[in-house]
């Protein structure tokens, strides 16, 4: 996630010339005690959590001796803030504060430029004291205007001998934000001390998700904003997105249980940011709870949509699978239909599903989905652009209420018997299998016909018509071929696709379930 903890942000500040309190982060009470011992008491111990008001929730304690640090850290490290368990505390020396100031940088969408908020009045309730806050517009290259900054500080109660240091700190906020491409950076408070120093006593910093690739030094694992630590499935989804740049795949897990009075937990698969959000609103107003928010769009490959469906169907307890985007998509929708049809077949989908595939090639997309899913235990229905989100949400509700299926339990995908024994060749992220023994002349001809020129007929058996290298990136075309052959009743091609790490997550889920 692209938010940095206080101690991480402070390390960056220190590197750029800021004075920060001496201290260190600890993930065990014992380590916290050792840090306190080496610093010398008294110290302050603070939970590392993305929240304001840590003091009020008991997340900040002062300690006179290392034993108390250990004892208090036990409590702090068992706290939960929102959905985040506290995993680290920061142990720091106490500084003798004279005055508390506030400085923050944000990106102003109206000005299309950074803006610095500066309060020189001191205090910790910045939101309530909006009147004391000065806005400093920033030049994107040069930062805040020097004259304006100096004039402000000169008119404040900051001691004359510290005014230059405060001005440097404000400029420093701009420089650090620019260097690490922060979306926001806040030092609250920036303090002046009785021994004449200006110190960053706290710091919150968020890095731009899209710039994380330029800052490997920050060690950011998953560059997405969530209101909880990334769950196992979210990590897998993020890895899939990083490995395949054809289109966008976004996955955030929102609920593991249906709300009280809800019609049930739904696997949600949107397409397009706005369309997904609008569809999410539609299905929720029909009385359902969504397990996840997913968006595959921007002309995603069939392989990406397939993997997205596999991730969504790794969530237990779903009463149905609901897919809907803008409904008038510019992208060719049959690729999504192929990806979904493959995933639903492999998992023998037993819960009802409604998928709105409106947009370019919607007729083909709906036909593919309908035929390929006809034999599944769960009812799968495809819809077009003239079917409104409200209509299909109501249809989904009707299917769920008619259905006698058990809530979904994640399972391993089925594979055809010829996997392991038929002919095969590798592609990116998987293997294509051909049922050489079960193939007849008609099946071979069909396979070639649906292969986008990738296969040729070699005496009644389809074989690769291009080099393995040229075939490697054609996962979506092979998925289309597989699904078309299944539609035609001649399933002689199968694409075995990896979803790295998914098996381990499912095993883990089974173990947890088994223990109850």
């Amino acid at each position, binding site marked *: 996630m692209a938010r940095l903890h206080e101690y991480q942000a402070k390390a960056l500040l220190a590197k750029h010339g800021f004075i920060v309190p001496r201290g260190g982060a600890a993930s065990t009470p014992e380590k916290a005690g050792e840090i306190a011992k080496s610093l010398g008491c008294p110290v302050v111990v603070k939970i590392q959590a993305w929240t304001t008001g840590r003091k009020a929730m008991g997340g900040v304690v002062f300690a006179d001796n290392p034993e108390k640090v250990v004892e208090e850290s036990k409590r702090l490290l068992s706290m939960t803030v929102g959905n985040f368990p506290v995993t680290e505390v920061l142990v720091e020396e106490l500084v003798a504060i004279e005055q508390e100031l506030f400085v923050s940088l944000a990106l102003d969408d109206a000005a299309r430029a950074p803006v610095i908020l500066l309060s020189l009045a001191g205090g910790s309730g910045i939101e309530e004291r909006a009147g004391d806050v000065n806005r400093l517009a920033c030049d994107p290259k040069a930062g805040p205007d020097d004259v304006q900054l100096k004039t402000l500080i000169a008119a404040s109660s900051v001691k004359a001998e510290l005014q230059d240091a405060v001005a440097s700190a404000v400029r420093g906020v701009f420089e650090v934000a620019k260097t690490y491409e922060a979306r926001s950076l806040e030092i609250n408070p920036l303090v002046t001390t009785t021994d004449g120093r200006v110190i960053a006593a706290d710091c919150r910093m968020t890095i731009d998700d899209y710039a994380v690739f330029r800052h490997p030094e920050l060690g950011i694992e998953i560059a997405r904003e969530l209101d909880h630590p990334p769950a196992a499935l979210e990590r897998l989804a993020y890895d899939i997105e990083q490995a395949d740049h054809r289109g966008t795949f976004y996955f955030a897990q929102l609920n593991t249980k249906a709300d009280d009075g809800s019609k049930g937990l739904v696997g949600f698969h949107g397409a397009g*940011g706005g369309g997904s*959000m609008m569809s999410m*609103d539609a299905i929720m107003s029909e009385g359902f709870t969504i397990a996840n928010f997913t968006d595959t769009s921007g002309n995603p490959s069939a392989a990406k949509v397939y993997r997205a469906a596999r991730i969504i169907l790794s969530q237990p307890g779903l009463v149905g699978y609901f897919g809907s985007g803008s409904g008038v998509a*510019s992208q060719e929708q049959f690729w999504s239909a192929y990806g979904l049809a493959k995933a639903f077949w492999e998992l023998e989908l037993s819960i009802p599903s409604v998928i709105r595939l409106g*947009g370019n090639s919607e007729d083909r997309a709906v036909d593919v989905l309908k035929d390929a899913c006809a034999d599944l235990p769960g009812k799968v229905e495809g819809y077009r652009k003239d079917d409104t989100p*409200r209509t299909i949400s109501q249809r989904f509700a009707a299917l769920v209420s008619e259905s006698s299926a058990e809530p979904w339990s994640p399972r391993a995908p089925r594979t055809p018997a010829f996997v392991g024994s038929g002919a095969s060749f590798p592609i990116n992220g998987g293997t294509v299998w051909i049922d050489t023994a079960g193939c007849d002349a008609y099946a071979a001809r069909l396979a070639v016909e649906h292969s986008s020129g990738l296969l040729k007929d070699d005496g009644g058996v389809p074989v690769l018509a291009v080099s393995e290298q040229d075939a490697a990136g054609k996962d979506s075309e092979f998925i289309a071929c597989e699904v078309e052959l299944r539609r035609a009743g001649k399933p002689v091609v199968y694409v075995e696709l990896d979803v790295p790490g998914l098996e381990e997550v499912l095993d883990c889920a089974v173990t947890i379930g088994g223990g109850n």
Partner: protein
Amino acid sequence: MAILIDEAKRVIVQGITGREGQARTNLMLGYGTNVVAGCTPKKGGQEVQGVPVFNTVKEADAYCRENHGGPADVSVVFVPARLVKAAAIEAIQAGVKLVVIVPDRVPVWDAIQIADAAKAHGSHFVGPNTLGIISPGKAVLGMIGGRAESAKSWFKQGNVGVISRSGGMSSSTAYYLGQVGIGLSTICHVGGDSVLGLRFPDVALMFEDDPDTEAIVIFGEIGGSQEEDLAALMKSGKVTKPVVAYIGGKAAKEGTRFSHAGAIIEGGKGTHAGKVKALTEAGATVVASFGDLPEAALKAIAGISSGSTS
């Protein structure tokens, strides 16, 4: 008339030799957009669908002036996200007055620098992360519609302007308005990012000045302040044409980003309720369900023809 784009504007495509560049040039040409040149460094001298390719925007612009009677009016950018800043600033410095930035995942500090360059040179840009702009019956920029024949059948020409923060929902909104008989002057997808070139208030002011636009339909989203800023313009009397709006993300939780970089509620700002309130108080019609948008737009238009402004 329409805003931002019509059939006469001279358009160049940056990144024209790439996969997306080629596919979308095909769409734009097929729809009737006056695509006159393309650029890709080191690919000068090639042709893409009959459109000559140059190494730089400057060369493409010089070619436009010599052979098409004037400068390149618009550049549509299809280069990888990390190269967008350099490409957009190149176009701005070459004097292109409108740059349409289609790619997704452009770092926000890059967008800020593009904005800085645009301001210095008196240029506008749309995006990043925009599906584009279309003036039905005239021309399209970017990739709205995906294919020319789809764009022709989905969007009808008329007197309502559409502004959207979602690409897919630009098409969707326009299509459903068309289904109830409402034609459109221009559809502008401003982009899904948090720092954008043209924003709701900028585009609304253009529609206000456009004699062929009678009403404005917006698809808004949680996060940022575009809807609130538009409401402020309406309150101050700078936007007087009727505004009908839907705001997505009613069910969104704070602190989680919903796909679009701009769609996040932070520090209690950018909420669904706040946006609905601001627009409603400014006199806009805000519908609770997306499906109610066409009906509300019909009412707004009926209001104009009957002489009522409420």
